[in-house]
Structure formats: structure tokens, C-alpha cells
């Protein structure tokens, strides 16, 4: 989230689209309802009338996979009706920038942008660039009139998204479409703010990233980014998926969003040179210019004293990707199926039910030589060898199932969707012999290291040089139990030597060797500081020489009245509660809306008051410093050339869809997605065998694949089995009654479910024909309940095709059939 949960109360309009907070983030609804109590309006846009829709002032249905058409129509509406916040758009976004004259967009090229290479399904992005002067400064037209400026190009592209065209694609009735546009468009005034809440309903599409981009563009046009009650808010699914992402358990990022090195970045200097964005705009703060400090401090945290300037701080020990290599989830299981891996850790995760195309995943597991599954409970992944269709005697995988402690049996922090890192205490000892994950990690670290020390082997250097001083050791040198506070402090970072400010005479001591670093502004690139994750620097600090765990704080002050609670836990970065908050003030540093004083420049005291300001300098009017400090150009990107499929979002149909044609252009699907071509990768569009659109979703009582909820009897009693929600019209057509057992099939598999015939799905009128949509939960699996009464995972049906940027699978729009069992 750019903002945070309580901040929802500060909105005037809340758009829940791509998410269903009432069901999936239930307590967040408290803050939406509180906004409503003050007069705010809630809009729900969803293929199904959800629990959120039931509380909404305005509900609009749309066919799964057509969000860009819907939002593109909104961009058009905002521009046509001059509802945008001009001062914000001109000063805080790249709307005025002039784009390369050779750039062409979908309006010129029938759905494509200039530079498309069909054979590679990839763009040459040369023309997706700005016109710049000899110093590299972008040429601009603050009047927004130049036909090559971003604003005019935006206008040109979305002029095609007329209400009629949109409605014909999305199936949203015209009056609903207009009503949503009008209501949300009303937040373009400085004293009106709109926020957006999305979840997997936006990410799980082949155009997922562009769904979110479309909303970001709307929020920028309306001046809602950085505002209290505004932002684009990802309602993340897991209690700590924010933290696990921050800490880089992904193939492409290290902790703190530093890129994983690739083979062409041959040494640390090259890595820093090539991954540090260059700013040419005079007012750009370009925060990523600190990359050198963050990566060097990371390497110091990883290898400790073994990392020295002489050995490039151990950079050479880091594993490197090939240039362009993509090791993301769908590719990982594709490679596993091809027998490329001997070993596999499925740690605190149940891929046999959670990944798209579960049959492919389950077969892939059987190709492993060994697998380690760490969990609270047995599950479909650990027990894959005895699952449906498997003959255990034929499965040659050696499998370990290691019991881990639950959240109340250990201590540590987790980061919620609003970036608050909150501390949890240990209440009891772990069940049976189960161990905290940290201790299992510690044991494996030590034992593998010992083997390398005794026997040698392939390149032992990174294994034996790892810094691991995380607690008291036994006589063999093993850390007995991981001291979580020690880890938290190392994540924050230390001075590794006495550091002086040499700009004054005599030099002044900034930090003593062994002191915790107070904030990432103090991290250094010469090895004199360490920090496991620069974003968390400031989470565990020293006050009067004593360590203070900021994440464990329980202070309840709320000086702004906006619900920031700056003394409750700790929020990254540096306890900032709303990111991009510099955009919430005008050029003089005064809040756009005085009733929502998130931040203000105190001209007398020459300081900012309110939230922790995004970057220190005085207001833009005085310092010239631009507000979006993480962007090299200093302003937010309405034109965003970083993405694979285009600098603006364009509507494409889902890979599996009910339409032969995309009525926006002759590009039916996203031209840049990777399409897997193996035997287990079947995709069917407009195929009579699979005539209905389907989507997966969740219910309040269960969580993800259900491993942590199916075993709770109260929850299982409330939601005992998988169901398939079907409209009354479709049920009639198929002769299905409420409560019947049905079989749902796709090109990849089938799953049983109980039919839930409801009004919540209504058939869509699309291009003069009727399109039906159904939905299933993905909380169940064959392994528990043991009698199979819960049925199996809906991911047996979903397609293993991913978004062109993130490779997140398209689980929200695919094609199925439904029949009575």
C-alpha cells in the first residue's frame, strides 16, 4: 500500500476494484465504513456482487479481464470533462514531457506501440523516450498542448475508449459506467480525495501490471497520489508477504529492492554503475543514487568481516543470473517438470494447490530427487506422492516434512500491507518437536557449512564466509538457537568501524563501531556500515546507548488526527506512514487540502511537520526539489516506458477468453506474454468445450490454499468444501440445482464442487451475445479433510500463463465448462 489501513477513513471516494476487502481483508472494512459514516462513497466494481458490493453505494459489474477497458474509459472521461487536477499534473507528473517524435501508439498502430518485434514477442523501446536537450533535460510543454507531450498522447490513446466501446467489452451497463466515472472523477478537486483498493483481482491477469498502471494514471490525473485518503493500495494477501518481498525471497530482487546481479555485472563497481539510475532533471532527488551505499552495506551484512574493499566486499560470491534470465514461478515449475532440478525446498508454502495449473505442478514434483517441505501441517505438496493419480511406488522422490513453530510459538516481526512492521511475542513453546523456521534455517546453514569445511567441494567460499553471529554457540561452534533480536539488529545495520564526519574540524564522531545505524541516510559505501536491508534501517535503533526495538512500540498518539499513529510499531521507510507524501502539498509546502494536513512546511521553523517527509529538502517552490524522490525524473510517470507491453495500458483480452476479437484493435491478447508450449500447457479460447469465463476467489473463513484454516474446526464447519458459484440463468440452462455436485473442467484439469446458484453472478451482455461467468474458491485440497469432502483445488483449472512483467498467473480470467456430477 502507498498509504495504510487506517488511512482509508480519510477518503471521500473508495474504489474497490480488483479486490473484495469485506471478504478478504475483513477488518479493513471498519475503516471504509468509518469513511462512509463521514459521508464518503464506496464503489465496488467486480464481476460478482460481493460482500463489499453489498456495502457499496454504487456497484458496477464487469467481465473478468476487462479492467483496462473500464479504467481507460475513466481516463477518457476525466480528460474529456476537464476533471483533472491541473497544477498537480503539470508540476508533479511527466504529463508535460515531450515524447520522441517517432513514438506511435495503439491509435496509430492498431493496438501496438512502435518497436514491436513479433518473432520475439518483444518491443524495442527506443522510441518510448523523451525529447531531451543537450544536458539530457527533458523538453516540456507546461501548457500541455504540444501534440507530442505525454498529456496529448494519453488523450489520443484513450479517446478510443468511449463509453459505448467500453460497455461493449466489459458488459457493464452504460448508466453504471457513467455513474462510476462521475463519482470517482469528482476527486480531482484539491479538497476531494479518492483511494483505490485492489488485490489479486488485478494482479492475476496477463495484463496485471497494466491494470494497476491504469489506476496509477487516474490517481495522478486526479492528484490523489501522496494524499491522505488517496493512493493506490495493494491489499496484500498474506500476513507477511510485504515483508518477505521486502527481504527479497524472489529471483529478481535482493532485500530492499536491489536487483539480483547478472553475469554482465562483473564486479561491484559495474553493478553500481549499471543499476544506478542517472538523473538529468535538475530538481530530481533520485534516491536510488544511494544504491552504492545500500548494496555495500548489504554485502557487509551478508559476509561480515570477510567482506573487504580488497575482495569487492564479497560481490563475486553472489550467484549471478544470465542476462535476461527469468527464474520466476511458472518457469521454475516448467524447468522442474523437465527434470532440471534434483532438489527442492517448499518452505511454508503449498504449491501443489497454490500455483496455476496444479496438475503440472504436481507432476513436476515427481521429477525431483529430493524435496523438503516445511509446514505446520501435512499438506498436498508434502504428500504429493500419495495424491490423486500418483502411484507412490513409482515416485522416486525422497521427501522430508519438517514441522515448524506457529506464530505464537516464536518471536519476530511481520509487515502488514500498510508497511507497518509489528512485533509478535512468543506465548508458548512450539508444539511437539517443531522448531521456529529460524532454527531450522540455522541447522541447515551449520550442517552444510560443516560438510564443506570437512570435505571441500564446489566453490565453498560463499558457504564458509557467511556471517552468522546470531546467538550463543555450542562447543562445535553452532548457534544453539537463533536470537531473533540479533537478526533484527543486523537487518537494521551497524557501524563496522568508528565513523567520523571529516567535513568539520576536528572531525566529529558520527557512529562508533558496534553502534546501530540510526537511519539509511547514514549508510555508507566504503564498508564502514552494514545493513541487511536498508529499507528497515531505523527499525532497531539506539537511544542513549540502549537498543530500542521500534517495531515493538505501542504508543497511541495521533497528532494529525489522520490515524498515522507514528509511535505504534514502525513503518518503512524511516517510519513514513504515507509514501510520496511530498505530493500532498503545493509548491509552497502547504497541504492541497487544509482539512487533511498530512504534511506542511513550517516556514518560520524551517521544517516539515506531520508525517515523516519523503526526502528532506524544503518545498519545491523554494528548493526546486521534485516530489517523487524515487523516480529519476523526480516526477510521477503517466508515461511509463519501463513495462513490457507499452508506456500506457491498452486493453487486450485474457489468453483464454470468450471473444474471437478484441474490439479495441486486432491484437486479441497481450502481445508480449510468454506462452508455454509443452504438453501440459493447454490453452483454449472461444472453444465450445469451455464456454464459460471463470475466476478463482476467496472467502473470509479460509486463507489461501487452506492449510492454515482447513485444520481449524470452527472455520471448516463454516466453509466445509469447495463451491462453484453460478448464475440462476446459467444453472437453468445447465439443469443444475443449488447444492448439486458439479464437475468443472478446463483445458488443464477438472475439479468437483458444490453448485451455489446465486444472483450474485449475472450474465453479461457482450457484443450482442450473452457471456456467463462462474467462480470457485481455491482453499481446498485432497489431503485434508482426509475424507476428501472438501474436494480439490480450483488451481487444477487455472492456466499457467503470466503477466508480461511479473509472470503472476492469470487465475482471474480463464475458460471452463460446468456439468452435473
Amino acid at each position: 500500500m502507498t498509504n495504510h489501513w487506517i488511512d482509508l477513513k480519510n477518503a471521500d471516494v473508495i474504489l474497490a476494484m480488483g479486490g473484495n476487502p469485506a471478504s478478504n481483508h475483513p477488518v479493513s472494512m471498519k475503516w471504509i465504513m468509518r469513511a462512509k459514516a463521514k459521508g464518503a462513497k464506496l464503489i465496488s466494481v467486480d464481476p460478482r456482487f460481493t460482500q463489499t458490493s453489498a456495502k457499496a453505494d454504487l456497484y458496477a459489474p464487469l467481465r473478468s479481464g476487462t479492467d483496462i477497458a473500464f479504467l481507460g474509459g475513466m481516463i477518457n472521461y476525466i480528460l474529456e470533462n476537464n476533471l483533472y487536477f491541473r497544477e498537480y499534473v503539470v508540476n508533479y507528473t511527466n504529463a508535460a514531457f515531450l515524447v520522441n517524435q517517432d513514438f506511435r501508439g495503439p491509435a496509430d498502430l492498431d493496438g501496438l506501440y512502435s518497436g514491436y518485434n513479433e518473432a520475439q514477442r518483444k518491443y524495442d523501446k527506443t522510441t518510448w523516450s523523451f525529447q531531451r536537450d543537450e544536458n539530457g533535460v527533458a523538453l516540456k510543454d507546461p501548457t500541455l498542448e504540444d501534440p507530442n507531450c505525454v498529456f496529448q498522447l494519453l488523450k489520443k490513446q484513450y479517446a478510443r475508449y468511449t463509453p459505448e466501446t467500453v460497455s461493449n467489452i466489459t458488459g457493464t451497463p452504460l448508466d453504471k459506467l457513467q455513474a462510476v466515472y462521475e463519482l470517482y472523477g469528482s476527486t480531482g478537486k484539491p479538497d476531494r480525495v479518492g483511494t483505490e483498493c485492489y488485490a489479486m483481482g488485478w494482479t492475476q491477469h496477463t495484463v496485471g501490471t497494466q491494470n494497476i498502471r491504469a489506476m496509477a494514471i487516474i490517481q495522478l490525473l486526479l492528484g490523489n497520489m501522496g494524499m491522505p485518503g488517496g493512493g493506490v493500495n495493494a491489499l496484500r494477501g498474506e500476513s507477511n508477504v510485504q515483508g518477505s518481498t521486502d527481504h527479497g525471497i524472489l529471483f529478481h530482487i535482493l532485500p530492499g529492492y536491489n536487483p539480483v546481479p547478472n553475469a554482465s555485472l562483473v564486479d561491484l563497481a559495474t553493478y553500481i554503475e549499471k543499476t544506478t539510475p542517472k538523473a538529468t532533471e535538475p530538481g530530481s532527488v533520485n534516491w536510488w543514487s544511494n544504491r552504492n551505499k545500500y548494496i555495500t552495506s548489504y554485502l557487509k551484512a551478508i559476509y561480515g568481516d570477510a567482506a573487504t574493499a580488497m575482495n569487492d566486499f564479497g560481490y563475486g560470491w553472489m550467484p549471478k543470473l544470465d542476462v535476461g534470465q527469468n527464474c520466476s514461478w511458472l518457469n521454475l515449475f516448467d524447468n522442474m517438470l523437465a527434470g532440471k532440478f534434483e532438489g527442492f525446498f517448499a518452505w511454508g508454502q503449498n504449491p501443489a494447490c497454490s500455483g496455476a495449473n496444479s496438475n503440472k505442478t504436481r507432476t513436476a514434483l515427481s521429477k525431483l530427487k529430493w524435496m523438503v517441505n516445511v509446514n505446520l501441517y501435512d499438506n498436498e505438496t508434502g504428500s504429493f506422492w500419495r495424491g490423486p493419480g500418483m502411484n507412490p511406488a513409482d515416485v522416486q522422490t525422497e521427501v522430508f516434512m519438517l514441522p515448524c513453530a506457529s506464530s505464537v510459538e516464536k518471536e519476530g516481526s511481520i509487515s502488514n500491507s500498510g508497511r507497518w512492521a509489528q512485533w509478535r511475542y512468543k506465548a508458548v513453546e512450539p508444539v511437539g518437536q517443531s522448531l521456529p523456521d529460524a532454527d531450522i534455517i540455522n541447522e541447515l546453514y551449520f550442517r552444510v557449512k560443516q560438510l564443506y569445511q570437512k570435505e571441500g567441494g564446489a566453490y565453498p567460499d560463499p558457504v564458509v564466509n557467511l556471517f552468522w553471529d546470531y546467538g550463543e554457540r555450542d562447543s562445535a561452534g553452532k548457534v544453539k538457537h537463533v536470537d531473533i533480536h540479533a537478526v533484527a539488529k543486523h537487518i537494521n545495520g551497524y557501524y563496522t568501524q568508528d565513523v567520523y564526519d571529516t567535513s568539520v574540524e576536528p572531525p566529529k564522531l558520527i557512529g562508533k563501531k558496534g553502534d546501530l545505524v540510526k537511519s539509511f541516510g547514514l549508510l555508507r559505501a566504503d564498508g564502514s556500515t552494514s545493513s541487511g536491508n536498508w529499507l528497515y534501517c531505523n527499525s532497531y535503533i539506539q537511544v542513549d546507548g540502549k537498543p530500542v526495538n521500534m517495531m515493538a512500540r505501542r504508543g497511541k498518539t495521533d497528532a494529525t488526527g489522520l490515524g498515522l499513529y507514528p509511535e505504534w510499531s514502525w513503518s518503512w521507510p524511516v517510519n513514513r506512514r504515507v509514501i510520496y507524501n511530498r505530493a500532498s502539498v503545493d509548491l509552497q509546502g502547504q497541504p492541497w487540502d487544509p482539512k487533511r494536513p498530512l504534511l506542511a512546511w513550517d516556514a518560520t521553523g524551517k521544517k516539515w511537520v506531520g508525517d515523516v517527509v519523503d526526502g528532506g529538502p524544503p518545498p519545491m517552490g523554494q528548493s526546486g526539489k521534485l516530489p517523487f524522490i524515487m523516480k529519476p525524473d523526480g516526477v510521477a510517470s503517466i508515461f511509463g516506458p519501463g513495462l513490457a507491453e507499452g508506456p500506457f495500458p491498452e486493453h487486450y483480452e485474457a489468453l483464454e477468453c470468450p471473444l474471437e476479437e478484441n474490439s479495441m484493435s486486432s491484437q486479441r491478447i497481450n502481445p508480449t506474454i510468454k506462452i508455454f508450449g509443452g504438453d501440459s500447457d493447454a490453452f483454449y479460447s472461444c472453444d465450445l468445450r469451455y464456454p464459460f469465463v471463470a475466476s478463482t476467489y476467496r472467502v473470509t473463513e479460509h486463507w489461501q490454499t487452506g492449510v492454515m484454516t482447513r485444520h481449524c474446526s470452527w472455520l471448516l464447519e463454516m466453509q466445509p468444501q469447495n463451491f462453484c458459484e453460478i448464475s440462476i440463468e446459467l444453472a437453468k440452462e445447465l439443469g443444475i440445482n443449488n447444492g448439486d455436485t458439479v464437475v468443472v473442467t478446463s483445458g488443464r484439469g477438472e475439479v468437483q464442487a458444490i453448485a451455489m446458484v446465486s444472483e450474485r453472478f449475472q450474465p453479461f451482455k457482450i457484443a450482442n451475445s450473452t457471456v456467463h461467468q462462474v467462480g470457485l474458491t481455491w482453499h481446498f485440497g485432497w489431503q485434508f479433510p482426509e475424507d476428501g469432502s472438501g474436494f480439490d483445488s480450483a488451481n487444477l483449472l487455472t492456466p499457467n500463463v503470466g503477466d508480461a512483467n511479473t509472470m503472476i498467473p492469470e487465475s482471474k480470467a480463464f475458460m471452463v465448462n460446468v456439468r452435473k456430477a
Partner: protein
Amino acid sequence: MGVSRRDFLKLSGGTVLIGTLGVNLDPAKVYAQELRIKNAKQSTTICPYCSVGCGIIVYTENGKVIQTEGDPDHPISEGTLCAKGSSLVQMANNDTRLGKPMYREPGGTAWKEVEWDWALDRIARLVKDSRDKSFKTVEKGFVVNRTEGIAHIGSAAMDNEECYLMQKLVRSWGLVWVEHQARI
């Protein structure tokens, strides 16, 4: 002004508060609840399910969780929880939780319980063997120093400190096939 359940218990004057709360709490029931947690130790935690991050109080007695309930001091959840958070006590006390490491040999038809030491030594051996076999130092003329034969996923269900240690460990082994829930 709202009155939290804990304030309520501190005051424990049932009848006086009925009017303030605007709900007719059955004093007998409240009294029973109070008895149940009377000698319990309290600690705070955060819900392990979704990312709202609601606060929960865990009541323990004799090393056992006897009750979990919403933390009224928590600024986001203000004492409320959804169905999942309300069931936390069932995760702490659950007969189907794994209590020992389990192992299935190649072609085996059943799990068998094994000792931690044995399992960890065996896994360490397998990691080393697969790493040694698949380690690539140079690819297309460039140093890559990576292990190609082992993949890892997980986990968003771990604490931050554990996530940090996890990525640190698997990268020290040279793994590049490293993913987790965020990709779904």
C-alpha cells in the same frame, strides 16, 4: 468514548457498564470468561492470516494457550477480528499439527517419523551433493557462481527476520531459482 473489554475487566463492575456499552452483556457470561483467563499470562501477537495485521492477545496458562482474542489497544483492529483471526487458538492447540519430522523414502508408501538430527544431516548431505554436481562457475564466458540443480520457494508465512535469513542462506548456496507467494 469506547470501553474496551480489558477496561471492562479491570473495572469488572458488570452492571454499571451495561448502559455505557449499549449492549446487554450477560454479566454471568462475562464473569465466566474472566475466571477462565484470570490467572493467565497475556502476550500480544499479530494475526498470521491476512495482511491487515490485526492485534491479538494470547492468554497462556501452564505453557498452554487457553484463549486468544482481539487486542482492544490495537489502532487498526481496535479489538475486532474476523473469523480467521478469531480462530487463532485452534492453531496453537491442534491435534493435526506436525510434531515430529517425517520422511518418505523413494518409492515408499507411507510417512515415517524420524529424528531431527538424522533428517537435517541427510538434507545437508543432499544439498551438498546436488550443489556440487550442478554448480556452474562460468557461463558464456562470464562468472556466474550458481547452483542450477536446486530450487527454493517460501515463505510469506515467516517473520521478517526469518525471511532475511532464508534468502541469505539459499543465496550462499548459490541458488537463483528462489521464489515465493508474492509471485502468485
